[in-house]
């Protein structure tokens, strides 16, 4: 999908939860600008997955909105955004190539364009030799790469990526980062959740750190350091520890 007229996304979560009257997340708002990568971070139970599910419309109790180009995501048309889940979702009787063909068919992508893009992505993720194999028989890491390939094939304006580094070996992580760089050059935006703070720091332009279902701090690395009272050389990991109060408890600096 073209990103020429892409002005970015706004995530607005007034309340989100799994039971009525018991919101897990409250008052979370952040923007994702064109070509920007935003990391949604936080300790276990902070509400990262809840926010992601809410933005995807998968929560039973949800007050909020995901705006794409200022309009609700539901009106943005197919292919405006792609979700890459943490747990690979595959169909057991489709080959890898057929998984991609199905994804392309959902957007009405012409056959020739699909074939060229699929070839390029399979080579990038070094999956071209298993294109006619069943992905359900792949290792977890390879299955994760299949999900990434499907997501990249659709060329959406916004990627929602849930824990992308789990199950990926270092070379696959490098391939993912290169692919995301290409997408950034195209103007696509990325919202990703992760626990891998070092990689998030390298990959993301801005961060939203959640604590107890609320935004504790957000901004660029500089802004995060300032808001958490960390020094100029502090890593995201240090800021995170300081923010969550574990620095003192663990004796870290």
């Amino acid at each position: 999908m073209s990103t020429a007229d892409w002005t970015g996304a706004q995530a607005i979560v007034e309340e989100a939860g799994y039971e009525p009257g018991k919101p897990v997340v409250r008052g979370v708002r952040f923007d994702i600008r064109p070509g920007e990568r935003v990391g949604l971070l936080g300790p276990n139970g902070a509400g990262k997955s809840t926010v992601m599910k809410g933005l995807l419309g998968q929560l039973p109790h949800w007050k909020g909105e995901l705006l794409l180009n200022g309009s609700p995501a539901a009106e943005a048309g197919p292919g405006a955004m792609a979700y890459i889940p943490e747990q690979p979702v595959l169909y057991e009787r489709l080959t890898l190539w057929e998984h991609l063909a199905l994804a392309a068919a959902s957007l009405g992508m012409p056959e020739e364009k699909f074939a060229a893009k699929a070839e390029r992505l399979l080579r990038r993720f070094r999956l071209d030799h298993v294109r006619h194999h069943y992905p359900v028989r792949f290792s977890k890491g390879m299955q994760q790469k299949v999900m990434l390939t499907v997501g990249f094939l659709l060329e959406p304006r916004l990627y929602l990526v849930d824990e992308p580094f789990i199950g990926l070996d270092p070379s696959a992580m490098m391939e993912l980062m290169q692919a995301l760089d290409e997408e950034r050059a195209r103007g696509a935006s990325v919202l990703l959740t992760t626990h891998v703070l070092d990689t998030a720091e390298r990959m993301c332009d801005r961060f939203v750190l959640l604590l107890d279902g609320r935004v504790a701090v957000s901004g660029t690395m500089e802004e995060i350091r300032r808001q958490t009272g960390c020094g100029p050389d502090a890593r995201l990991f240090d800021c995170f520890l300081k923010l969550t109060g574990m620095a003192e408890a663990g004796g870290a600096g």
Partner: protein
Amino acid sequence: MSDEIRPAGLRDEREPDDSEMHRRDGRKPEDTDDPEPDPWHGQEPEADEPEDEEADDEEPEDVLPEAFSPAGLMRERIAAYWRKVLRSWRTAWDWTVGVYIVAPFLWIGGNIYAEFWREPPGWVADMPAAVPSALLALIVAVFAADLRTFADPGDGLFLRRNRAWTRRMIGIGMLYTLTAKLVVTLIFSALLLPYHLAMVRWPAGILLWQAAGLVCGGYVLALVRDAVSRRWSGWRRRMSRFAAVLVWAAAWGWAVSAAEDSPAVRPAAIALLVSGGAILSASRLKAQGTLFHEVETERDAYAASIGWLLIDAPPVRALPRGRRPLVFRRARPLLPGAAAPHRRLADLWLKTQIRRFETVRMYAALWGLGTAAIVQTPMWLAVAVWLVLGGLMVSWLNRLVVQWYAEPYMKMFPWPEDLAMRSADAARIAAGAPAFALWGLAVGVKAGLLYGGFVWLAAAAAPAAGWWLYLAINGWMAGFMAKPVPDKKKPAPSPDDRPQAGDAAAEFEKNN
């Protein structure tokens, strides 16, 4: 432990368990099934220590029931297995199933069966007796196919360390397998009795010989398939198991044929099967490291018993056995015009269905039963049956399409409603029209046979007409059948605004 708190069915068993026996005589347990058994650290028995009855009352769970034995445990496991299976079957049963499915099936099936044997076709009388015997051998081999041991994954913790218990439990499993073969043999032999009694006029002795041979042969085959499964995996396992069944069926057919000229073949065959069964049983009882395979076999047996109920539940569906599909191994499209998105979707749906053995089996069964119904009914009824079969086919295929769109992977994508509807339409036609046209051929040939002359033209005209008739039935039913994707809950767009399926590619181009 008192009888009141002992599991039912174990109360009369007074046999001491092996661990108690070890405690009594102070000896080590026998060899274990564990490749690296832990050294024995059992305590020496204490002489005549008075039992603390109060302590027993307080902590009864620490003491094994006195009657706890391999036989009792196996009895409990077999009963639990069948309780579980029957409970699952019960969920699919209510009076509507009985009235609308089972009763008509029994009535129609029974009538077709009775009619067949009342006036059997000429080829039945001409068929050598070895052919039905070989088919019977095939059926007995396929039903209740594997050695059952009712193993549980938890057995690996303690039970398998006791070799005596393991042997006795597997021995009971062998008896169960033999009994299952006997039951299946009796059922299918009874169905073939009209042939054996009225057509080839076998005396009771030969009938008994055949039954004994089928039971023993089925049992031997179960042990052979068990050994093959433990030895190989992948395609070697599948091919070996398949080949074993074919060899057995052919061998039994040959034995039946040879016994007509040389009656000595009969006792020789039974002796061979009994001795073979005994040798294989002894060898199997000595085998070690079989727990994983046995647990896998039990899981497969349970899945086979209830799988038909849960055939569409994604977590229950079996994963493909190979790394690559057996059919349509390349990306070549199956349907013409697959460049169009809706045709591409229909093409992918069709491939996935053909790769699922359960769907192919159901399709073949529906086609076979439909053809039998057309052949066995009067001409006017055959035409009506043909039309009803078309409706059934459309309805069943639509259910498969709807389920496909409900797959988690499919739900990840925002399917435009019109694209999904058109792909469902193409899928139902691609999968169902050939079967409907072939039913039309059966109707046409039947008409030609009955009336002769120019009516034979119906044999050519009916399949062609059937194709168009199927399209009409499909179009009519599409109006009220379940839709592949739910209706969008938003105001209906005006006719001018409504997206057209053919516009999907144009929409893509516009956005890019």
